[in-house]
């Protein structure tokens, strides 16, 4: 098993080295224009310099802080509203058209308004991230609770379980897998919202650096930050998968 893993790791490493070598060769021999696509050696140099000066860490810190805060606030609000909707279906019926209208709206279009309201700092990024996370987690919470096994609920009824016991012993644990899939998607969208808002207008963050580098034709820098964002996204998903395996080991 370990040897198999090593073999796959080696194959991936070789593939990446070949692709980088090919990119380097194509750009140095004039097959591709490094002004538009960057150059592997330039990308590595950019990353090295930014890691050494600490700028990359500062930007990443701001982006991750915005992502985690908006994810937490958006998820807590969504789960609370979801529980209220399941408990009081009339409330959901009343608010459904408004929430639908807000959900179909491209949330990034609200970024200029949020920047106006909350300024160029973290507040506006959190607002955009929250607005994306909220609806995803809300729908998964409602779907998760409504999708709880009818057999389990019938069992509770025949045993004379209280609403409290039924909710905490059966409904909530039964809904967790669906809620979790919403949380996983919500976290990715929180990152997307924060980066989007940083690109539009910000003082700090990976999105702000990306916009600046793009505007100044620093393609190596743009490519380097895109690579960092891809790694960040993968790490976030991996972390959620790890947590899911821990929490939902019974699945």
């Amino acid at each position, binding site marked *: 098993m370990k040897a198999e893993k090593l073999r796959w790791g080696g194959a991936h490493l070789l593939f990446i080295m070949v692709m980088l070598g090919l990119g380097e060769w194509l750009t140095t021999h004039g097959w591709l224009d490094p002004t538009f696509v960057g150059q592997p050696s330039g990308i590595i140099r950019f990353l090295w310099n930014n890691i050494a000066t600490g700028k990359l860490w500062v930007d990443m810190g701001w982006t991750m802080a915005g992502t985690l805060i908006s994810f937490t606030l958006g998820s807590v609000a969504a789960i609370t509203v979801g529980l209220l909707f399941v408990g009081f279906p009339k409330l959901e019926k009343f608010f459904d058209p408004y929430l639908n209208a807000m959900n179909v709206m491209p949330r990034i279009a609200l970024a200029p308004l949020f920047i106006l309201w909350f300024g160029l700092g973290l507040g506006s990024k959190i607002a955009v991230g929250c607005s994306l996370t909220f609806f995803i987690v809300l729908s998964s919470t409602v779907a998760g609770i409504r999708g709880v096994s009818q057999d389990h609920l019938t*069992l509770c009824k025949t*045993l004379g379980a209280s609403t409290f016991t039924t909710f905490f012993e059966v409904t909530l644990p039964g809904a967790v897998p669906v809620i979790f899939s919403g949380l996983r998607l919500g976290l990715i969208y929180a990152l997307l919202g924060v980066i989007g808002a940083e690109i539009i207008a910000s003082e700090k963050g990976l999105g702000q650096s990306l916009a600046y580098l793009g505007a100044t034709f620093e393609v190596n820098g743009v490519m380097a930050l895109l690579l960092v964002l891809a790694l960040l996204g993968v790490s976030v998903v991996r972390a959620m998968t790890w947590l899911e395996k821990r929490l939902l080991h*019974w699945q």
Partner: protein
Amino acid sequence: MAQPSRPVDSNASLAIAVDGLHLNFDGSTPVLSDVTLHIRNGEFVSLVGPSGCGKTTLLNLAAGLVPHTGKGSIQLAGASPLQGNPHVGYMLARDSLLPWKTALENAMFGMQVRGVPRAQAQERARGMLQEVGLAGFENMLPKALSHGMRQRVALARTFALGSPLLLMDEPFGALDAQTKLQLEDLLLRLCQQHQQSVLFVTHDLSEAVAVSDRVVVMTSRPGRILADVAIDLPRPRSIRELQKDAHFHELYAQLWGHLESGWSKHEG
């Protein structure tokens, strides 16, 4: 040496008394019509009949899951049906185990909901798991158990409640033939030991004959009682031995005849 059928206490109040029961959900075709059924304490009665004849509805009425809104009466030990009645244990067609709880925690669940102290519930659940042949599997999650084992845990959970009346809705309906026979044997043993009254819904005639003291045949649209057949096979019974018993096959044929007559009446 053959023993007489499991004794029933005819002097005590009835476990279930259904008299002239009518049920109509939406004002159109009645679901149940003029159903009268008395089950004595300690008696094992099976309900058989075609799909939609109201067997499960009758069971759910007894469990208090369906409100009784029509004519007639239904009483459990002299009282009206009540959802969550502590004197009633209910077993569903599927095992309905909670997948995040271990076999032991699942076997304890019903007792804990009904307020049995944790230590006592744990001890009784361990004993029941041993009784259903699952000693050593206490800490396994349902995903690691076979269908048959899961249904054994569900049996342990139901019998651990110690309710004097059990309502069972096709508990072995989703199992393969071999596992089903094993679990029928287990059910016979458990009933022999625990002496509870049972109302058992099934589609399987041979299962009904094998486990019951009486088999009640229902007919559909509306659900009525067509026949009430006493199963005078001696107890304790063994499913394997019953397959070779001529009287078992006679009873099976008799019940099959009643079912067929129900179909022809309905078609006619």
